[in-house]
């Protein structure tokens, strides 16, 4: 008899899509010809919100709630490293859908739908946004394509038999909703603090399997629909002056900047 089933009256399989992005510490540079951002030789990492998603899935597994955690990434061959990071954090296996195209969120959602249909997870946990494109779309789009409910910007999740409670970070504070399973959850910053993978776990992760797929395997056309006309530097803000005292500050705000009366 399955030991986990003795402890929990329900268990779930979890899919976690992870994206390889420029490390959040990197100050990016726009290419002089304005065709995009210069990514040559910059440090790449797992998107921080995806790390939070992997952490949450692994915690559910450690608690006996999740039976299997699968990490999937859409991207170039190097996205393997991102999947290995997820495996080192505790995911069981990976799927790499390899493409060198910059895939738009809708096409990523269509690919993920293909993975969901093949794997039948009960829960998909995504990051709320990738810190490069800043789109904040993929999870919601996947939910739409599957006809599943969505719990976005989660700061707490409580899975139960057949449903999941999700507390969401919204503009006015916090909102709690309940979703039927299967469901989509996207992570916000306060959901958890992701672990660092230990060396033994990094070694172990090297032996975990990663399936290699292509967008064609899922019959999805990843040709971009949006045309990037150009990518430019934002207007630069010049540093102003230092003031010596509060009195000088208040005086300048009143009489120079005119923002205080």
């Amino acid at each position, binding site marked *: 008899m399955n030991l986990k089933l003795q402890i929990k009256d329900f268990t779930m399989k979890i899919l976690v899509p992870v994206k390889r992005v420029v490390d959040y510490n990197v*100050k990016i540079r726009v290419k002089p010809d304005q065709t995009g951002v210069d990514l040559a030789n910059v440090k790449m990492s797992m998107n921080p919100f995806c790390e939070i998603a992997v952490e949450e899935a692994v915690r559910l597994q450690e608690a006996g709630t999740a039976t299997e955690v699968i990490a999937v990434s859409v991207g170039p061959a190097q996205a393997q490293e991102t999947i290995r990071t997820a495996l080192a954090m505790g995911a069981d296996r990976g799927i790499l859908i390899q493409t060198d195209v910059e895939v738009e969120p809708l096409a990523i959602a269509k690919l993920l739908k293909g993975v969901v249909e093949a794997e039948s997870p009960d829960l998909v946990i995504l990051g709320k946004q990738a810190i490069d494109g800043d789109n904040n*779309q993929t999870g919601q789009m996947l939910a739409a394509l599957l006809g599943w409910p969505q719990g976005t910007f989660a700061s707490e999740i409580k899975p139960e038999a057949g449903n999941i409670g999700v507390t969401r970070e919204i503009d006015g*504070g916090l*909102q709690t*909703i309940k*979703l039927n399973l299967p469901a989509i959850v996207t992570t916000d910053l306060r959901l958890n603090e992701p672990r660092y993978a230990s060396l033994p776990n990094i070694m172990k992760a090297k032996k975990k399997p990663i399936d290699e797929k292509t967008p064609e395997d899922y019959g999805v056309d990843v040709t971009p629909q*949006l045309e990037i006309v150009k990518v430019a530097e*934002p207007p630069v*803000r010049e540093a*102003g002056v230092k003031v010596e005292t509060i009195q000088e500050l208040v005086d300048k705000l009143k009489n120079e900047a005119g923002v205080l009366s």
Partner: protein
Amino acid sequence: MNTLVIAEHDNQTIADATKKAISAAIALGKDVHLLVAGENCADAVADAAKIDGVAKVLKADDAAFAKLLAEPLADLVVSMADGYSAIITAATTNGKNFMPRIAALLDMPQLSDITAVVDANTFERPIYAGNAIQTVKVSSATIVMTVRATAFPAAGEGGSASVEDLTSTGDKGISEYVGEELTVSDRPELTSAKIVISGGRGMQSGDNFTILESVADKLGAAVGASRAAVDAGFVPNDYQVGQTGKVVAPELYIAVGISGAIQHLAGMKDSKVIVAINKDEEAPIFQVADYGLVADLFNAVPELDSAL
């Protein structure tokens, strides 16, 4: 073909962010229709009809839309999407939640957080925490996008739009509202306040935020925070300003005990005047501040308070 704007409201009045999204919608040059979906939302509908530039208000009054949950709202919008060449909403947490669901159901790409309308098909949007500005051209049959409210002026009053009742598409019941824990405050809303004073890790505790609140009350300002201050539990999550929190662009932004990480700057660097108070003269926040004061905040803020 017309432009549809999806309104954010509290069943009484239309949110400021929506009025700003309407300005972006007007720039597309088509008739603007405003969808007000809610429960007992007659007052919000009346408010909507007065907005300048709105040709028609579409009212969907049903319990299904009480909390603007994405699942029923997306079904409603998809049922009425024919006849619209653009669907627009403000990039609030509500808009960010429901809009991609609508886009995917329509099989259309979405543009998030646009900051400028170049022409009827071309838009600007920030990427990489605002460190690059992308100009994107859309050729899809329907333009689906969210608008960064701080980048547009609010549409004025003076309109007299007609009102049309919509048939509710109901709720499939796959999601359910349980409850809310809203931050109660008499201060202005963070994203529309004229003055914002924010505290960071340097504040050391939630209790110490009272010294910022006292200044805020004298200035009629909203209080914000860095991620570090929210993560440490000093203040609630909805105070967070930045790439992954709220974007603000007030007349005056005062950063207190905030170092100025790129993720924080992404949320406030379009403020008209920036003041930084930090004890470290090397702090990156001084690179964007119009007025910098190198000082211990526990002396400087009470001094500021008594100088006002």
